[in-house]
C-alpha cells in the first residue's frame, strides 16, 4: 500500500515517513517563496495535513506525491504573498563558522541574491527556485505550475538573463563596486 493511502487510513508511521521524505525541499521552497521561516513552517504543515482531508484532490495517476506537494506549497505561498508584504528575513540565518568580516560579506551577498530573485516576476521566480535550488527537471516544474515544458524553459531563460544583469556587479572574481 502506498504511503498516502496508508496515512489516510490513519497509520501515523506512514504519514511520518511521507513527511520525512519530502519536508526538507518543501520547506526550502516555501522559505524562498515567502522569505519567512514562520510562514514556510505554516505552509509545509498545512500542506501535509491537507493530504488527509476528504476534499484533497491528490490523484496518483495524475502526478507523483512530490509534484503534488510542491504544487500545494506553491498555492499556499501565493495566497500568503497576496496577503502580506515580504517578511525580509533573508540572510539572518547565515552560518556561524566564518570570520565576522566574511560573515558580514556573506550575509550581504546572500541578501542581495535573495532580493534579486524576489524581484523577478512571480512565474519566473518560481521556475528559477525549482530549477536551480531544487534541481527539478523542467517537465516536473511544468506539472507543478501547470505549464508546458517549453514555457517553463523560456521563463527560466528570462529569469537567468535578468539575474545576470541585476547581479553583474557581484560576479565571482570581480571587485565589488561601492
Amino acid at each position, binding site marked *: 500500500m502506498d504511503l498516502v493511502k496508508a*496515512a*489516510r*487510513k*490513519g497509520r*501515523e508511521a506512514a*504519514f*511520518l515517513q511521507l*513527511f520525512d521524505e519530502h*519536508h*526538507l525541499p518543501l*520547506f*526550502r521552497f516555501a*522559505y*524562498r517563496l515567502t522569505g519567512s*521561516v514562520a510562514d514556510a*513552517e505554516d505552509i*509545509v*504543515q498545512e500542506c*501535509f*495535513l491537507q493530504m*488527509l*482531508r*476528504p476534499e484533497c484532490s491528490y490523484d496518483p495517476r495524475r502526478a507523483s506525491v512530490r509534484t503534488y506537494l510542491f504544487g500545494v506549497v506553491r498555492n499556499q505561498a501565493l495566497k500568503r504573498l497576496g496577503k502580506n508584504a515580504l517578511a525580509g528575513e*533573508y540572510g539572518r*540565518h*547565515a*552560518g556561524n563558522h566564518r570570520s565576522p568580516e566574511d560573515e558580514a560579506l*556573506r550575509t550581504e*551577498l*546572500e541578501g542581495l*541574491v*535573495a532580493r534579486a*530573485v524576489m524581484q523577478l516576476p512571480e512565474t519566473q521566480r518560481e521556475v528559477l527556485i525549482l530549477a*536551480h*535550488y531544487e534541481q527539478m527537471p523542467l517537465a516536473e516544474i511544468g506539472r507543478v505550475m501547470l505549464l508546458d515544458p517549453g514555457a517553463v524553459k523560456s521563463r527560466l531563460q528570462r529569469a*537567468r538573463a535578468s*539575474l*545576470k544583469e541585476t*547581479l*553583474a556587479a*557581484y*560576479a*565571482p*572574481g570581480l571587485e565589488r563596486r561601492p
Partner: protein
Amino acid sequence: MNDSELDELLDAWTAPPVPASLRKNVQAGFAASQTSWTVARVPRARKRMIAAAILVLAAFALVVAQAFPQKAAPPLRIPYTVDSEFLSYANDGSSVVEMYSTSYERDGAEILKSRSIPRHPLGTVIGRALDAALPLWSRLTARFTVAPEVLERVRRSAHQAVGAITGCDASCLVLEHYGFARAAVGLNTACIDGTIVGHQTILNHPTTAIQPRMGGSVRMTWWMAPDLGCFALRITTEEKRPDGTFRLVQEKRALRVNLTP
C-alpha cells in the same frame, strides 16, 4: 557573467534549517485529524455500500428468524444502566468526545443499550444498525460455523471473565471490547486480575483501580465498582512514548448511574 558564475552567486542564498517544531506540529495535526475527519472521509460510494450491506443483512436476518423461530425469553430485569462518554486524546492533550453510550452489566459482560456519535448522525444510525445486526448474525451463524464443543467451552468460561466496551475504531462504527480474567476469590473488590493502583468513589459508588497485565506498549486502568457487578465506571488507555513515559490516548467515563426502581 556566464552561467556557472550565476549559479555560484545564486548558491550564496541558503535556506535556514527546518525548525524542530515542524515535525511535532505536523504529528499533532495528524492525531487531531484522526478524530475529526474519520466519518467525513468515508467516500459517498462506500457509504451507499455500507447502507446496502446493512439492508441485505437485515433482510437475511428477518428471513432466517422466520425460518428458525426462537423461544420467547422471559423479560429481563436490568437493575441499573450507566451513561458513559468515550474520549480520545491528541498529542497536545486536547480531547474529543467520540461516543456516548448507555449500557449495563450481565454475567461479567457489558451490554450496550444504545449509543450516539456526536456530530455524525449518519454514523449513529449505521452504528446502531450494526449493533443490532452483528450479534444476531453471530448467533444465527454460530451453529453452522463453530464446533458445538467449542461453543460449549466458550459458554462455560464466559463467567470467568469480566469484559467492557473500551472505545470504538477510527470510524466509530465498530466497538472495541476488552476482557480480563476475574480476580481470585478473596480479592473480589479487585474484580479482575491485575495490580491494584488505587481506590476512588465515582458517582457515589466505591471503585478499585486495577491495571491488568497487558505487556507491550499499552497500559489500561479500570476503575471497577463491585456493588454494580464489577462494572467499570472509568477506563483509561495509555500508550508508551519512546522515553518510557505514558500518554493518555483514550478514556471512558461514566456520567450517570441510573438505578431501576
